[in-house]
């Protein structure tokens, strides 16, 4: 199916015109035709709409959309056999906003099935290949990261200006890090989830991937607004409160690089696990040194609950997934697989079991089972409730280190724990986005057992806490020398900037400053 779509764009385009923004869109579709067979980033490509207005805020931008975000004109498969033939009758709010503002929705991108995975290898459409490795000589097949790997690869390969992803535990930031681009997971509740196929509702965020911070911000500004159809959408008054507070301390009118001057940057000591590659720590040191020269105050901080965050995340996310994915039973949704003739038809579960066993991939099944167990009466207290308590501890950790309160806190008895003066409060946190650079697809633990399959979860240590806290986090590529001392090609890796809830503008400004500084000292 995919190749057919691509072929359509290989054929002489009827839309070739002299209008520049128009030809950009055509250009991107040509790049897709040329590169996608190898990269496998796109799973559906849209036909160019000739009626797109050219005077809107996002006119001229071609934006790819992850395949778990509903689009009425293209299928929404979530990279699952279950939804292989599914086309949503409506557009997600975020898609509608993009189109209303003139963006060209260029296609749907590959991802891990229902957003579950870190390497984009659990997909009915096949794995995504990191475009950086493909352009090397000799070519290397490396992971683009996941679960929004298709979105990251599409941007990195120049197939579009920007892409929407979803980030439940790092699914935007990790692929951004592996592919050397910018990836923003905004504060929870800022971008509507209406039309985003739920994996874990309390963690799911729509994220933005682009090759630079300005494009990321441009898209972000036009898709963040209150949406009554998303019950978790942040109310305007809360957005305003956070914004006013941020602006009071960080006037954005000043030149972008000036924001670093006097900025208090916390370095969380728990974010350097033993598995982290030493080269990455070096890159971060270089970045920290650069920021210091610009007047930033570097503050070592401790977020003691971090080590439990990963377990908490997998229990909560799986529990929510087991409930959210219950609807795919082959009756209302999903491709129905008739039971074997000798199936005991008096057991309803057997009929569903067959459809679900054949249509869900291994990783999804694993998480549904884990979640189902965590919610069972016997395990509920020890797993689910315990995980919620840990999540609160993680949130408390963040609230303790940030100078600004969390205006989105859903706790009625919210206690401002800033009183602790172990550390003076910080404005943002900075840490590596990943423990390593993009792994080879051959070392992916797709079929292997034991150690390797667990190591793919260790990576999430760095990204999951911000998800549990609902905080904005942005991964920006760190300056990495082209080749290391041995002459080997150096792969990109990102640094993550994490802020208090609602400080998305601040972290975008900090990221913009870092981007500028890194370019200047080249």
């Amino acid at each position, binding site marked *: 199916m995919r190749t057919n779509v691509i072929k359509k764009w290989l054929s002489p385009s009827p839309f070739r015109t002299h209008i520049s923004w128009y030809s950009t869109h055509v250009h991107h579709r040509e790049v897709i035709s040329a590169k996608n067979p190898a990269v496998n980033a796109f799973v559906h490509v849209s036909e160019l709409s000739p009626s797109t207005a050219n005077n809107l805020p996002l006119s001229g931008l071609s934006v790819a959309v992850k395949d778990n975000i509903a689009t009425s004109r293209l299928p929404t498969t979530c990279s699952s056999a279950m939804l292989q033939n599914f086309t949503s009758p409506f557009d997600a709010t975020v898609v509608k906003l993009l189109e209303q503002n003139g963006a060209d929705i260029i296609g749907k991108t590959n991802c891990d099935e229902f957003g579950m995975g870190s390497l984009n290898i659990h997909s009915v459409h096949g794995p995504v290949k990191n475009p950086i490795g493909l352009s090397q000589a000799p070519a290397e097949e490396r992971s683009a990261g996941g679960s929004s790997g298709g979105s990251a690869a599409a941007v990195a390969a120049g197939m579009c200006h920007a892409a929407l992803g979803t980030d439940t535990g790092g699914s935007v930031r990790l692929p951004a890090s592996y592919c050397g681009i910018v990836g923003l997971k905004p504060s929870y509740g800022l971008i509507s989830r209406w039309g985003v196929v739920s994996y874990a509702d309390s963690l799911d965020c729509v994220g933005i991937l682009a090759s630079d911070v300005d494009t990321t911000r441009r898209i972000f500004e036009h898709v963040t607004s209150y949406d009554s159809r998303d019950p978790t959408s942040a109310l305007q008054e809360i957005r305003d409160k956070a914004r006013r507070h941020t602006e009071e301390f960080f006037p954005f009118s000043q030149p972008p690089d000036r924001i670093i001057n006097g900025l208090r940057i916390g370095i969380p000591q728990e974010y350097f696990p033993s598995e982290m590659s030493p080269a990455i720590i070096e890159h971060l040191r270089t970045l920290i040194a650069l920021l210091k020269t610009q007047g930033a105050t570097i503050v070592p901080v401790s977020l003691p609950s971090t080590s439990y965050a990963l377990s908490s995340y997998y229990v909560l996310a799986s529990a929510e997934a087991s*409930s959210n994915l*219950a609807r795919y039973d082959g009756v*209302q949704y999903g491709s129905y697989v008739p039971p074997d003739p000798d199936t005991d*038809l008096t057991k309803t579960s057997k*009929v569903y079991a067959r459809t679900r066993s054949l249509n869900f991939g291994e990783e999804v099944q694993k998480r549904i089972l884990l979640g189902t167990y965590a919610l069972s*009466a016997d395990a509920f207290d020890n797993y689910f409730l315990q995980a919620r308590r840990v999540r609160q501890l993680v949130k408390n950790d963040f609230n303790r280190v940030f100078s600004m309160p969390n205006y989105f806190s*859903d706790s009625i008895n919210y206690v401002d724990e800033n009183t602790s003066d172990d550390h003076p409060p910080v404005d943002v946190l900075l840490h590596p986005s990943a423990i390593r650079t993009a792994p080879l697809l051959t070392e992916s633990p797709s079929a292997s057992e034991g150690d390797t399959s667990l190591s793919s979860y260790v990576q999430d240590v760095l990204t999951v806490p911000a998800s549990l806290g609902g905080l904005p986090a942005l991964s920006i590529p760190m300056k990495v020398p082209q080749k290391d001392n041995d002459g080997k090609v150096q792969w990109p890796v990102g640094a993550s900037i994490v802020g208090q809830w609602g400080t998305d503008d601040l972290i975008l400004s900090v990221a913009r400053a870092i981007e500028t500084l890194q370019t200047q000292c080249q």
Partner: protein
Amino acid sequence: MSLFASRVSLGRRSFYDLRTYQEDPRWPGWQVISRQKLFSESLTSNLDDSPNTHVSPFDAAYPGTLPVTLFLLDLPSGYQITNNTVSPVATNGELEIPVSDSSSIIVRIKQIQLEQVHTAKSTFDPRTSKSYIDLNRAGTGLMEIVSEPDIRSPEEAGTYVRTLQSILRAVGSSDGNMEQGSLRCDVNVSLNRKGDPPGTRCEIKNLNSVRFMMAAISLAVPQETRGFDENTFETFRLRSKEDAPDYRYMPDPNLGVLVLSEEKQQSLDVLLNVDNGVVHYFEQLCQAPSRNGQKRDPAVLLNWLTHELLGQLSARQETFSANPLSAEQFGELIDLVQERTITGTSGKLLLRYMLTSPSSRSLEKFATELELIALDSTSSLGSSASTELEGLCKAAIAALPSEVTAFRAGNKNSRGRADAAATRSLVEKLVLSKPV
């Protein structure tokens, strides 16, 4: 409202009985727990049960019953949203219900909770072997009122439901129409010998009439008693640990915490205290003397008010504020029925006329014009009525050979004016004395 599990209701419960044991000739010892569902406007099915684990006679007759393999067809999301554990709407209430003219009992209300009716309406066409699903009703709200095990007989259960129904109609929270599915009952019955702890519970779900419910209680218990020896024991052993359904409750992450400020709470209290006038109306009815100068029976008035007037208004999708009948008119209507100038059937018909085309005229004149005066009426108007009834009955019997058909035809000709008991005795007399 994001909520947790009611493991309470699945687990152990202590046997509570403050009431003196009363001999019931049908079988020794009663315990009834009534779990009653209330729909804002829609039908629901119960999906949390494994198919065929507790089938009642009524389940089999329930329309839309599907082959077991398709039992969860109508639950689109695969889960249901409820607030039954963390913060039910209300807890620890009680309802006083009359058990005889002079005495009443207290039925404790454990809690009132809201649930999402997530189920669709499904129908099975046996001819084409296809199931059809109508999602119109999926997602509407449902209020569940859970009582404690304080009810001891089918009659008490019936009174309990009727009393609740009246209250719900009076406060306007439900139209209470059981036949339309707006109100349904889930009944838990457990049986024990005198002095023994309560036996295993049997749950009968989705009962949509008080009469069915009472019959179900009477029928279900001995059946299961028999079942206790046999394999069926397993079938009904709902609450044992290994069979307990594991609902896998989870706080819905999409529903946040609802914070009510003091201010807001007060405005809500004000709303709750608004009386739509029905209480005052009832008092007017009670205080005015009847047509023949006697004191009206409040129980009869209440019955007519809640079941007929409020019932017909809700069937017309109107609230009490739209009631066009003055208390005088409605009182006169009830008096006419009470003194048997018109039959109950005619009274209801007259009420419907009055609601459709309101008028300030005397009800009795209206009844006469509509030829609704009872045929065997002994009131001042009824001098020739008895002979008219006899004539009608004779004609009916002569016209049709079969007694049964004759009965029906007789009733049709009289357009509901015939008093059922009088007609029966008269027809019987005629049939016996003069063979046709």
